[in-house]
Structures are given as C-alpha cells and as structure tokens.
C-alpha cells in the first residue's frame, strides 16, 4: 500500500508542478486563517498561529526581526520573510508617492488611499498590490487598479478593466525588485 501511495503522490506532484501553488495557499490562508486544512499545523504551531491571529497579526517582541539583526553580520544566514523582501520593498517604492491605507508586510499586501487628480475631481482610483511569494519570481506579485466615478453624492465603481495599467505596475515592481536583489537589503 505504501508503494502505491508513494507512486500516486509522485504522479500527482509531477503533474501539478505549476506556479499556482503559492497563490492558492495565500487564498486559503485568507479564507481559513490558522484553520487552513492544508497547513497541517501541529498543536504547538496552531497555538502560536491563533495567538498571532487573535492579536491582529502583531507580535510583542518581533523575534524574527531580532534574529534578522543578529544574523545580518553573517551574509549566509538571514531571517525568513513571509514574503519576498525585494518584491515587498519594490511595491513600497512604486507606491511611495501616494498615501498608504494598508502596508501589511506579513501578508504582503499594500493598498493606497483613494488617489484623486485635481483636474478631474469626479474620479478616484486606488492601487492594490499583493506579494504572494517568498521567492523572487515573476508570478510572485499581483497588482490591481480600481477606479470609481462620482454620480451625485455617490461613488460608483466604473467597472473598467485596467489590465494595461496593472501590468505596468507589476512590471515596474519586478524591475525594481530585480535591481534591489543585486544589492544587499
């Protein structure tokens, strides 16, 4: 039975080698939090996860950061970010001229406040950036661009696809991240 099971797993694994895995796991994290059925957390890990979830994602002493500082002097050992630091810093760089509503480096999520142009006060847009990978890969970042128009006193989504703008943002982030990776953080 064990051999059959191993063969079954291997076939599935080979078949499924795709780049969707990290983004799929990120979605499940968002839906289930600590109780993600695919995380298979031990009892101890579940307690740590629940404590952090209850605290709104914050940590008291930030041990990860302390270890990062401790090992910074040794270039071969660094602290493991939950998202790729080059992509994260590149995301911040791209949005640095706008006020940020959310900048969650654990979840890898950046969202700007509404951006308005003085020449057209009846339209406003915002940028959302999601870093989905710990690795510096081209599919490790997703950008979305949302706009609303003012109708009377109400802001209504304009339902326009800004695919070109979103790809430009993503490409810019990848470009900056590539350059950052060539220099120490």
């Amino acid at each position, binding site marked *: 039975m064990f051999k059959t*099971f191993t063969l079954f797993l291997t076939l599935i*694994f080979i078949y499924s080698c795709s780049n969707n*895995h990290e983004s*799929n796991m990120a979605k499940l994290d968002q839906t289930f939090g600590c109780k993600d059925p*695919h995380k298979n957390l031990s009892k101890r*890990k579940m307690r740590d996860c629940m404590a952090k979830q209850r605290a709104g994602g914050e*940590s008291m002493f930030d041990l990860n950061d302390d270890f990062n500082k401790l090992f910074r002097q040794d270039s071969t050992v660094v602290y*493991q970010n939950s998202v790729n630091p080059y992509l994260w810093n590149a995301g911040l760089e791209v949005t640095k001229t706008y006020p940020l509503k959310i900048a969650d480096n654990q979840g890898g999520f950046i969202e700007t406040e509404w951006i308005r142009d003085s020449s057209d006060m009846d339209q406003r847009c915002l940028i959302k950036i999601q870093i989905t990978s710990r690795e510096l890969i081209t599919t490790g970042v997703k950008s979305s661009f949302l706009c609303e128009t003012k109708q009377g006193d109400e802001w209504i989504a304009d339902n326009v696809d800004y695919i070109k703008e979103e790809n430009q943002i993503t490409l810019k982030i990848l470009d900056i991240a590539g350059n950052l990776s060539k220099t120490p953080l």
Partner: protein
Amino acid sequence: MKKIKYLLSAIPAAFFATSAQADISVSGSANAAYTDAGGNASATYGGGVSFSMSTTTDAGVTITGASAISNDSDSVGSSSGATGITALTFGFSGGSITIGADVGTPDGVGKVGELVGYADDNQVAKTPVVGLTEDEGDGVSLTTSIGDMSLTAAYVYDGGAGGNVDGAANTASGASLSMAIGAGTLTLATADEDISGTNNTEFGASYVLAAGGGTLSLGFTGTDGDTAAKEGEAVSAAYSTSLGGASVAIGYTGHDANNKTANQTDVTFSTPLGGGASIFAEYTNVSGDIAASTSTKDATVIAIGTSVSF
C-alpha cells in the same frame, strides 16, 4: 496585452536568481487561561518558542526543519519539553513534501462549529463522537496545487511514532481538496485509520463563504467502520464576524451515531490589545447523550484568558 502576459510568464526566475542561503525563522506564543466547569475553577498557563531552519539548494528546493521549546498550555498539569527536528519539509515551486513525525491526516474538516481551544478542557465527553480520534504519527504528506485546486495527501505509516514503515499496528491515510466554488471555498476530505485491526473511515466536507459582513462555514462529517460510537453523521455550522475590532464566532455541531445524539454549541470572543497581546473568552455547552457531570467536569464550561504572540 497577450504579449505582455506572455512575456511576464516567460521571464525565467533565474533572471532574478540569488545565491543559496540559510534562513532561521523564530516565532512563539504564551497564554494564560481561567476555566470554570460547573464551579470547578482551574488555571492553565503555557507557551513556547519555535525555531524553523531552512536552506535552499542550488536546484531551488527549500528544505525546512523545525524544533521547539514548549510548555503544554491546555491542561492543568502542564508539561514542558524541548523537541529536536523530527520532520523535514521539502518545498518546491509546485508544493511541498513533509517526511517525519507529527504528520496527520486531514480529519475534522467538516466539524467547522467546534471552535473552543481551552473551554473543552474540563468538559464531559459526548457519547457519540463522529470522526477519527488518532491519526497522527510518523508519515509522509504532500501539499500541491492542480490548477486552482489545492490538494493535500498524507500517509501515516506508524501511528505509534516508532518509525516502522511497513509493519506498524497503527496506520492512517487521507486526502483533502479545496477549490473555489461560487462565492465560497469547498473543501472535501477523506481519512482512514487502522488501529490494531480496527478500521474507520471519515468523510468530511466544508463550505466557507463571506456572508453579512462575516464568514459563514457549513460542514458535514460522516464516519463508517468498526467503532459503533463513531459510525454516523455530524452536521456543523459556524458564523464569525468582527464587532468593533473584536472577533466573535458562534458554532454548532450535532453528532448522531449508534442511535445516540449529542450537540455542542461553542461561542468565542477575542480582541487584540496591541503589541501582540489579546484577550479571549470561550463558552461551550454539550447536551444530549453525554457523560454525567463530576466534581471536576461539567456540560457547560467557560474560559477567559490572554495570549501573547512574539
């Protein structure tokens, strides 16, 4: 536009390649809780620090091992311990494989309404309990994605944690699949256990969706096999939401097995205090076919406590 998409996917990761490096991740938590079961009050304390060490091979495979210093926190007689690295996880671009101890099959997926983590410590037992009970041990598990579906499969070759690959008395296996359907996420799971020749199979399903500003979870569990008290169905539901920064959840699970029924209702509340600290409260009640209350255990239990993440 298609060209841009094509170019994006075609840029090789090697373009951004970095040298292999070792990583150390540290996390931990501490907690204290007061539990009251029908007038019997008790306190539990615990916590621990986990170290996760990983390295990346030249081929891009991430290998991770974890160890910990811990103090069990959900029993009055807390037990302390330190564990070495007992499992290795190999991470690939398409998923990960874990080999070692503490591998578990995906059981309990359908019991979405069982929410409490502390208040059930001094609660009387339900007579019918649908689902598997012991499914962890030495084994191998795989998590991967097929398109937009996430798949986890696990095989526990020695439930006694003795490292016996082909002759252990206790074995288990299972698989779970999650996918987006409609407005929510559907998870299907199956798990089998063989404990010294006593076989049971569990099927679980859950559907989780956003509703009314919160999250609604619906679940079903069915068990078939040699143990009469487990053989039956359980239906479960939970609703969680945020109220002024606090998280509130209510859950219900009904067990029906071997012509006996039992119901469990859980309510949880937690709110962050800032700086990684939070306070929580839990209430749980069981009714129907349950064990009699004792001087230390009761059908209704409440717990209040605090936890810190660091």
